């Protein structure tokens, strides 16, 4: 064997080994399961594929939890992990799912909406693959996902994404972004099928309120806010004012732009009778000028570069040495969801939605997020769900 051939074989083996080591980590991440314990309020669990074609048997299909009271009332849908790199949404939805008791009306929760995105990562940005939340029974481990669905599940991307039905031209990447593919279509790309199924759920179940939970950069103006279209504006404004007065945190209202298509807070309102809201809480981890993208930055939101920028007035939210811990973000979301339900009930008493046994902002900050998660090892098997 000539020296050059031996050298080439060694090179292939070396690169192959490195690829295998990296690939196995990504493989485990993609197949890692976080057990979800259905709480006392959960009455039924369906799959999103029950509402739209083309999802059954794909990684995109996801669990839909129903918390239905004996008394009829309003219906609210909570969507989390539209963007799986904004995990306060997932954690907030799980607090509702594992604890809430609905006394009147129906609460529907999709905790892992973009399941493909939740099994994707952004290796080029050095994202951690997992994060852990401390509980009284140990640590609960979650996958850290990506903003968009994995190209392993929807490929190839077009040169330009032409939104359906408005034909607005959007970035090619947004065809995998489930906050750009609303209202979707039954025969489109996989993410369009996913949002179409969610639209069908909203229409068939006659959902009154839809809350899509997110997180946003501190340097982005649309952060720490409730985004609402015209039809939801009154409830959003009352919610914002009440939260500021009663609970002491800012959550201003941003109008949903009518000329920017594909977003949940625009299309859900235009293509159904539901009132949509999108909640944003500050997420320093997503800002560009930060230090390494570590689990600590994700959970505590402390970063020296953002602190400097804050002192120069470059951020859109108050920021100090305490950062923006996850408990504050999750607490804000819990309070905002409960307050939207309360304001809707005040305006529509015949469609009341009464939710109890769910913490508000101050309780989540004081007790920690983990204190609201159930121990899967002590739960009944039939109450544990995986996607």
């Amino acid at each position, binding site marked *: 064997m000539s020296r050059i051939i031996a050298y080439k074989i060694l*090179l292939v083996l070396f690169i192959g080994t490195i690829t295998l080591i990296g690939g196995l980590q990504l493989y485990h991440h993609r197949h890692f399961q976080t057990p979800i314990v259905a709480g006392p309020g959960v009455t039924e669990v369906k799959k999103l594929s029950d509402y739209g074609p083309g999802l059954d048997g794909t990684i995109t299909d996801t669990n839909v939890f129903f918390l239905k009271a004996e008394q009829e009332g309003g219906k609210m849908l909570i969507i989390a992990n539209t963007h799986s790199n904004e995990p306060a949404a997932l954690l907030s939805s799980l607090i509702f799912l594992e604890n809430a008791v609905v006394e009147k009306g129906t609460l529907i929760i999709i905790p892992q909406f973009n399941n493909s995105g939740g099994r994707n990562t952004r290796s080029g940005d050095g994202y951690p693959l997992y994060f852990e939340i401390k509980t009284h029974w140990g640590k609960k481990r979650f996958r850290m996902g990506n903003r968009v669905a994995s190209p392993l599940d929807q490929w190839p991307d077009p040169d330009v994404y032409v939104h359906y039905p408005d034909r607005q031209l959007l970035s090619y990447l947004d065809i995998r972004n489930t906050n750009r593919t609303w209202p979707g279509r039954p025969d489109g790309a996989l993410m369009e099928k996913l949002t179409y199924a969610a639209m069908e759920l909203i229409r068939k179940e006659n959902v009154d309120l839809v809350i899509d939970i997110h997180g946003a950069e501190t340097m982005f103006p649309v952060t720490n806010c409730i985004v609402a279209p015209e039809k939801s504006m009154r409830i959003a404004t009352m919610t914002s004012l009440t939260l500021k007065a009663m609970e002491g945190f800012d959550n201003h209202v941003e109008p949903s732009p009518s000329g920017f298509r594909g977003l949940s807070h625009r299309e859900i309102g235009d293509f159904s009778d539901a009132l949509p809201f999108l909640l944003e809480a500050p997420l320093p981890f997503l800002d560009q000028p930060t230090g390494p993208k570590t689990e600590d930055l994700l959970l505590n939101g402390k970063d020296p570069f953002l602190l400097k920028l804050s002192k120069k007035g470059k951020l859109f939210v108050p920021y100090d040495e305490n950062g923006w811990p996850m408990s504050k973000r999750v607490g804000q979301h819990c309070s905002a969801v409960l307050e939207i339900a309360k304001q809707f009930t005040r305006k529509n008493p015949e469609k009341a939605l009464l939710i109890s046994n769910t913490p508000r902002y101050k309780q989540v900050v004081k007790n920690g997020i983990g204190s609201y998660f159930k121990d899967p090892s002590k739960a009944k098997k039939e109450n544990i769900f995986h996607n």
Partner: protein
Amino acid sequence: MPFIMIIYYLISAYLLALLIWNFIREEKSVDQMLQYILIMIPLILRLFRAK
């Protein structure tokens, strides 16, 4: 499988064949060899549908 996907797979196979051929022929530049191997990775994963 849609027709466009079949075309994409054929293109991937064609590019992979070119890269393997160039890798075999390359006898001097280690940089070039390394480059060929690295570019082959996503094409191999795509062809074998490895997720």
